[in-house]
């Protein structure tokens, strides 16, 4: 009975998560200031996530893992230039947030993040069995 209840609960959780995601996308408050350009690469050992964040400071940046996704959020403000007038403004400011869902073999316990020259690079290792280790396969 435990399994049945767990499964039903899981299904409920999925339904709720999708409902909430839909509601979130439709709410105006969800509009971020901008969305940084992002690369996501995958090799045998890790997922590498690279975001362009020129002018962003480490202290205004949050990187965390939640629900199987890597989340990078923060804010970047337009510099306060006394007596200067903005003649042309192409740069984007304000809040930003990106959620990158990764497959279940992502090991969020070993994440490495580095902000350098305005580029944030996050490495999330993939779990794999030790060489020569045995993986039991269930026959359905």
């Amino acid at each position, binding site marked *: 009975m435990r399994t049945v209840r767990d499964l039903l609960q899981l299904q409920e959780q999925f339904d709720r998560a999708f409902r909430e995601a839909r509601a979130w996308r439709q709410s105006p408050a969800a509009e971020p200031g901008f969305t940084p*350009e992002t690369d996501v*690469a995958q090799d045998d050992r890790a997922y590498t996530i690279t975001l362009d964040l*020129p002018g962003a400071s480490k202290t205004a940046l949050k990187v965390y893992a939640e629900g199987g996704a890597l989340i990078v959020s923060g804010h970047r403000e337009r510099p306060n230039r006394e007596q200067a007038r903005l003649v*042309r403004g192409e740069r984007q400011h304000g809040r930003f947030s990106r959620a990158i869902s990764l497959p279940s073999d992502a090991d969020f316990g070993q994440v490495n993040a580095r902000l350098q020259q305005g580029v944030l690079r996050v490495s999330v290792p993939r779990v794999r069995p030790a060489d020569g280790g045995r993986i039991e396969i269930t026959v359905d």
Partner: protein
Amino acid sequence: MRGFPDDPVREGARLRARLRDLLDATFVETPRSEPVAPWVPRADIWATPEAVIVEVEVPGLGADDVEAHVEGNVLTITGSRTPTRDAGRYLERQRPAGAFSRAFTLTQAPRDVQARLEDGLLTVTLTR
């Protein structure tokens, strides 16, 4: 309240299959390996009575990769970024790469030019 599924094990497998399909759909491999769009770095221009300040976003570039050049009343900024060569394959690729060149015309030739590169942001101050 939803009723019990006929067969909880099969229901579990179905749920798992749906989840797998969802993940597969999320991570469809991008066929290209090179960035798509040409790179036009975003810029802000500020004006004060004494100077014009041009801020250009050049994330990932070091001092050797970017150049600011003034000729008469035209400021030209050029640079290039080598596409990152990550091992394996890309699940998503948005960051532009390659060479860029942007020119800004000023109302008059500046008396002095100073450039500073910090955190992927090039700031050029042109004294009037």
